[in-house]
């Protein structure tokens, strides 16, 4: 890997304070809420509240999403002002998303198999988590890690690309197309089936195929950043 790209990645990580703070506050708030709930339950104040809390690990998705928004919007110009080239920014961000997706996936898996199992003692209705909902947990922690990693990588590539294009007309066209796809495809049966097929492909199908689909799509979508970056005015 290009050393300048690694420097760019390092710089992005050093300047992720806002995304980290927002994620940290959210996770902390959910943890406090959960602890209060557990303390009340332990003290006999549990009145059979019906609640399906979202698994704490899933909140780390927020870090990946926010990073993919802030990095292209805030860091590109500043990095060029430090003498970075577009190619280094492109490669550096890819390193960021691979590490972030892997990190978020790892934390999510660890919390799912530890803290969330403990939470289940207090939530008879269960804890909502992407891992069992998408069926990844059934494949065991290692395969689930890779499934979640591939999905997060695709998600971050998509958000980064969309955010990077927002200062150009085609970024707005892409926004409009996404809104149209969601609003028009859902009510019309054949189009809805196309959406279902797509989401099956990136979420629900067998683990190897799901991972492969997500990785290939992530590479294809992230590659769109090359022409977008080339046209980006500084």
């Amino acid at each position, binding site marked *: 890997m290009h050393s*300048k790209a690694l420097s*760019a990645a390092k710089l992005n990580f*050093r*300047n992720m304070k806002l995304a980290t703070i927002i994620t940290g506050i959210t996770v902390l708030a959910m943890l406090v809420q959960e602890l209060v709930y557990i303390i009340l339950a332990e003290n006999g104040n549990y009145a059979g509240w019906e609640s399906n809390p979202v698994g704490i690990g899933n909140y780390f998705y927020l870090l990946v999403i926010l990073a993919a928004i802030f990095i292209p919007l805030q860091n590109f110009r500043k*990095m060029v*002002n*430090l003498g970075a*080239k577009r190619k280094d920014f492109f490669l550096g961000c890819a390193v960021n998303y691979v590490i972030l997706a892997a990190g978020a996936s790892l934390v999510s898996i660890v919390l799912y198999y530890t803290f969330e199992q403990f939470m289940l003692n207090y939530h008879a209705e269960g804890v909502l988590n992407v891992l069992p909902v998408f069926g990844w947990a059934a494949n065991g922690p290692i395969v689930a890690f890779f499934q979640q990693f591939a999905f997060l990588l695709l998600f971050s590539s998509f958000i980064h690309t969309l955010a990077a294009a927002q200062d150009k007309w085609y970024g707005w066209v892409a926004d409009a197309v996404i809104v149209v796809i969601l609003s028009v495809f859902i009510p019309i049966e054949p189009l809805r089936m196309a959406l279902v097929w797509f989401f099956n492909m990136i979420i629900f199908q067998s683990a190897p195929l799901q991972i492969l689909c997500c990785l290939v799509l992530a590479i294809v979508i992230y590659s769109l950043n090359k022409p977008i970056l080339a046209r*980006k*005015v500084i």
Partner: protein
Amino acid sequence: MIEFRNVTKRYGKTKAVDNISITLPKTGIHCLLGRNGAGKTTFMKLLAGHIEASGGAIKVGSKKISPSRMPENVNFVESGAVQFNMRVSALIDTAAGLQDGFDRGFAMRMLEFFELDGKKKFKQLSFGMKTMLSAIITLANNSDVILLDEPTLGFDAVMRNQFNTLLLESYQAHPRLIIVSTHLIDEIAKVNERLIIIHNGKVLVEAGMDELDEKAYTLSGTAELVMPLLNGLNCIGQTMVGSLVAAHVYDRRITPPHGVSVDSMSLSDFFINTVGGKKNAQ
């Protein structure tokens, strides 16, 4: 060598750069002058590959320049460049990691020389210090072409003088092409070797300082003695007070008759008369 061939840049209906053709040498400190909105920053951004030309071609060496082919050997920092809010020393280290051959030693020496506190964060610096830091980061780069847009913006008189030292230190350590855009004309005249004047998107003058010293002068005397001398000369401006006239000329030197004095024209007078006079230099 840098070549602009019939380069035009339009923003909507406005031509920021209008059919410029110019060839620049490999080394030297060039001063880029022009009024606000003349096209100086656009000229630099085009050369750095930050924006796409609407027409024509720009070459650095044999390589054609565009945003998708950003030149590796051209470094440009615009005025008021925003940086990450990191410690000054960390910004220098980061720039060293992002650029091949970054002269960290030069950057650290300059930080010390300008008394820039390496522990301070970027947002804690004064406007002038922020500009100085960006200039240091740019000049520590080992690129063949350095573009500085309004590098002395927000500087006090001492800092402006120090900046000239910085520029010369950098040039002596690594001779290359340095283009400086500024409004502080006479101060940059102390260090620059060539001058480019841009007006309404066109290059009006591209000349060496020696050539300007020779060809730019003022004839002063009574109107009846001075006016006949101007026939066949390129007079770029005149000032009349009563029967006395000061005629600003950009042309061959003449030997004036008794009663007419010849004085060298300052760079700022030359600039003012070139872009604001009744006639333009040719």
